[in-house]
């Protein structure tokens, strides 16, 4: 198939970028979107042009590194699909495809389609953990039974791959779905209870410091999440946050 591409090109964080047009032909329908980008880059290199920089690593939908805004949606038109798992057969011969980086103040563009997502790491550093040192002397794993329903729900929240599609999709560039997934996971497990109050307060505080927008419950995040993380997590975090703020003695 032949395609027209409109791709965001930006030399570095400080330069101004713009959409540039590219034509690409003989794209296999069986190739993934990233393989189509590989093909474009090969052609650019052969021609002596600079290839398009984009983030990618595992190419099986789990590392969360790929991050393209394709035709107006993060990770493109398919539901619950990362860019690396999006295949070209979902497009038509002759299509024009827009490819842009994630857009958010907290995700500055570094080059072309590559953005800086350190803000998400810093939010986790603010409290997305259980403070337990490594030792051979922790409780036996079966010492505290966990209801299966809670364990399953904690798992569902924990499947977040930290790609940032929620932020990219949100009209407010809010990171609530990402943050709430981690808060939820630990709130649902007995191991997370000890630090639950400080965790939610600190993580939300860090999220605000990073310059993400506010949640107005639009719901675009959950629709675009490649792992199908649910809005229930945001409600749970709101609940945790409210009760922690009211009862906090700090």
């Amino acid at each position, binding site marked *: 198939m032949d395609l027209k591409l409109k791709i965001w090109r930006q030399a570095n964080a400080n330069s101004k970028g713009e959409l540039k047009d590219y034509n690409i032909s003989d794209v296999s329908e069986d190739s993934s979107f990233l393989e189509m980008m590989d093909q474009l880059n090969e052609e650019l290199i052969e021609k002596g042009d600079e290839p398009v920089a984009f983030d990618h690593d595992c190419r099986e939908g789990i590392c969360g590194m790929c991050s393209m805004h394709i035709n107006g949606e993060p990770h493109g038109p398919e539901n619950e699909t990362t860019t690396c798992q999006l295949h070209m057969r979902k497009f038509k011969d002759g299509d024009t495809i827009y490819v842009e980086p994630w857009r958010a103040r907290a995700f500055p563009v570094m080059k072309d389609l590559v953005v800086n997502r350190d803000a998400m790491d810093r939010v986790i550093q603010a409290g997305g953990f259980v403070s337990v040192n490594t030792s051979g002397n922790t409780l036996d794993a079966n010492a505290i039974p966990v209801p299966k329903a809670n364990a399953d729900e904690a798992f569902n929240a924990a499947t977040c791959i930290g790609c940032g599609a929620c932020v990219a999709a949100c009209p*407010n560039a809010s990171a609530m779905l990402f943050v709430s997934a981690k808060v939820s996971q630990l709130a649902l497990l007995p191991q997370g209870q000890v630090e639950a109050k400080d965790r939610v307060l600190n993580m939300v505080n860090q999220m605000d410091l990073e310059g993400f927008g506010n949640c*107005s*419950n*639009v*719901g675009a995040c959950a629709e675009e999440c490649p792992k199908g993380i649910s809005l229930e997590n*945001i409600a749970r975090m709101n609940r945790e946050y*409210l009760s922690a703020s009211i009862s906090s003695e700090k």
Partner: protein
Amino acid sequence: MSLTGLFLISFLIVHLLGNLQLLDLSVEGQEKFNAYAKFMTTFPVIKIVSYLLYFSILFHAFDGLLLVRQNRAARPERYKSWKPNANSVWASRNMGLLGTIILAFIILHMSQFWYTMHWGEIGMDSQGNKDLAAVVIKTYQDGSAGMIMVSLYVIAMAAIAFHLWHGFASAFQTLGLNHKRYTPVIKTVGYAFSVIVPLAYAIIPVFILMAKN
């Protein structure tokens, strides 16, 4: 936003119950309405609640505008290609715009009736109450100006409908009131409320206008 929003939703019900009396345009009906208006403006408990209401409106509006500002700042560079309809509904993304329309309407609405009731020139009915019913009827029946007022009223109710379409369930979500069994009920009630209540409001001025002939 959620607490003031929910309070304003409860106000909508009370206010609607009062307004619906205007569907009886007989002299007795009008006098009953005027008596009700007097009660609402003088009874101490209601007065206290009304101050809470003014505060809620102002807070809801200011907080809303602040959020809009912050949220815009969170994405300084916009997408060139943006397909929001693929993942969300229009009302959810335009609460600021809808809220602004509603705020403008509230200002107009209060200047027309609330201000007149309190400080404006207003006649008395046979029971010695301020004749608010007459003011209302005049506003919506007065020639082409009346037509415009009715239209504005209907537009504002549409804005409220869309505002509620998102806002009703959203308020519960913000408060963390989420439950596998109850949340679907809340959503259904919210959608029904957001259609029925503004529609009921809008019927009243249209009815008054039609009653002219």
